[in-house]
């Protein structure tokens, strides 16, 4: 059964135009022109209990806006949100009782308070009974290794410790849903790994539904089963993470520079099926090919036969690259149909 349902969700923001020039500025004091920015446009999805969903997209794609509508922070311009069968904006307290929120760049801890006191406060706030409280504290202390800093005020903790603390308070009341907005931002590799394992474990043991936004593709790969990709407020992809990987990240790219003055080569000379050439800046060229079809060595050899290569490097595809390609691909598809 769906625990979270979004139907034709839209959120518009008014963006006031800034005009240059003195007269225009004066005019804008009286009458300001604005345009409507559609931050989220017709987004629909349905998430089942226990799912681990990665919600990704570039900056300004509408990720946070969607999450904020799901948590009840923002009111949708149109469309419906239903979380556990309730509208979060209307049933704020009831909704808050059953969700946990970790926003990577905003803390919900109390600066001068050690964790042990924050726990007591949250126990009261969420009306957690003594048995659950004791059980959860022991569990988090152990799994998140918090014993060493439980008595220190939050302000003295490292970022990694703070993030662990954030998770433990967000989960103290056994929420059904955990919303994570960039939970691993700024953490070192080890701390990231720890957080990822923790998320997977609590999902498995407690059937907590997790919705995660991040820019770190590794987070998604390690944690999520399902991926929702959004750009310019619209959903571009919604499906299994495995399918996403096979269809979009199997490409590899070789970047190379070659001697240009001997013969007038151009890409028409290099016509091997499955290998595409692109011009880059400063005389660089890129050859992209499917890893299923060729190995990097094969492609390099072929390139060397034709071009007098001075330097080359095999590019690991960055997340941004894969995503970029995806947006273009999906965008074109959309236009054609």
């Amino acid at each position, binding site marked *: 059964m769906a625990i979270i349902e979004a139907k034709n969700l839209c959120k518009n*923001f008014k963006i006031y135009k800034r005009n240059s020039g003195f007269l225009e500025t004066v005019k804008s004091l009286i009458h300001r022109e604005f345009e409507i920015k559609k931050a989220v446009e017709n987004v629909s999805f349905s998430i089942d209990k226990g799912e681990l969903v990665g919600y990704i997209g570039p*900056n*300004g794609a509408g990720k*946070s*806006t969607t999450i*904020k509508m799901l*948590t*009840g*922070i*923002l*009111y949708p311009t149109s469309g419906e949100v239903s979380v556990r069968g309730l509208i979060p904006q209307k049933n*704020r*307290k*009831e909704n*808050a*009782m059953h*969700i946990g*929120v970790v*926003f*990577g*760049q*905003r803390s*919900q801890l*109390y*600066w*001068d*308070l050690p964790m042990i*006191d924050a726990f007591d*406060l949250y126990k*009261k*706030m*969420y009306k957690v009974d003594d048995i659950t409280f004791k059980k959860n504290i022991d569990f988090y202390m152990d799994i998140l290794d918090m014993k060493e800093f439980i008595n220190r*005020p939050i302000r003295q903790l490292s970022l990694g410790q703070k993030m662990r603390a954030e998770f433990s308070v967000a989960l103290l009341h056994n929420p059904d849903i955990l919303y994570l*907005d*960039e939970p691993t931002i700024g953490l070192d590799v080890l701390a990231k790994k720890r957080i990822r394992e923790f998320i997977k474990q609590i999902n498995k043991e407690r059937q907590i539904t997790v919705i995660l936004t991040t820019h770190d593709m590794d987070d998604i790969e390690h944690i999520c089963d399902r991926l929702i990709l959004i750009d310019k407020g619209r959903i571009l992809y919604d499906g299994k993470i495995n399918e996403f990987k096979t269809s979009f990240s199997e490409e590899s790219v070789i970047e190379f520079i070659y001697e240009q003055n001997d013969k007038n080569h151009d890409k028409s000379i290099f016509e091997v099926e499955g290998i595409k050439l692109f011009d880059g800046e400063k005389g660089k060229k890129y050859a992209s090919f499917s890893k299923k079809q060729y190995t990097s060595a094969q492609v390099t050899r072929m390139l060397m036969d034709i071009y007098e290569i001075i330097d080359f490097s095999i590019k690991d595809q960055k997340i941004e690259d894969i995503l970029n390609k995806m947006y273009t691909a999906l965008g074109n598809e959309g236009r054609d149909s």
Partner: protein
Amino acid sequence: MEYLSLYLDFVKIKLKGMTEYPGAFWAESIAKMMGWAANLIIIYLMVFRFENVFGWSAYEVLMLYSINATSYSLAGFLMFDAFGMLSRHIQMGTFDEMLTKPMNPFLYLCFKGFSTGYIGNLFSTVTALIVCFVALNIPINFTNIFYLIFIIIGSSLIHSAMFMFVNIPVFWIVKADALLSLRWALDEFIRYPISIYDRWIQVMLTFVLPIAFINFYPVQHFLKKDDFLGFSPLLAHLTPVIGIVLFALGYIFFFLGVRNYKSTGS
């Protein structure tokens, strides 16, 4: 009611936090205490020099001022950080947190922002109040103390509403500095008995922006004065009613603002 002890916990946290930096606490309290004491003394000396202002003696004017300042300080405990910082909460997006807790966002904002910075003010202004009571031979008996508390609760509510009305517009316009200065300008008006102003200002301070109810009308009950500017003497007892109405309007205004909260991207 079940939340009362939870809200009081936030006060405890702040007090605990305060003990972490005792130096800062004492410095702030003593500085504020002295600043406000200086204000009080200046008012007293000024009126004393002129013997009286429109029939109000120096101690009577001092009492006006100290009732205003006491209720302002009391309102400040819960309202100053909550609403004074609202603009920053909104710019930084930290207001998000108020909306994801199983609590009333208004009360959560107020209690989480509990400020210990007004203890010094309160010390000065309450001292001044006691001085006025003694100097003006107002009997300090049960009825008078009860009535004083009654009034101060009412005028604290009016001050709280002022905190709200000048700051809540930040939900729409993000910054409200101009409104803040308007608020301080208004505060200047009620330092002296409003009988000194033109008729239209008196009407405005009574019916439009009813801040004369903070001190001018209620204090006359103690001073046995009859300076009601041609309005009904009943106005002396209306402070708590005005306070509750304004506070309720501010509360509604706040939730209208929440509907319009835009948060910020992360």
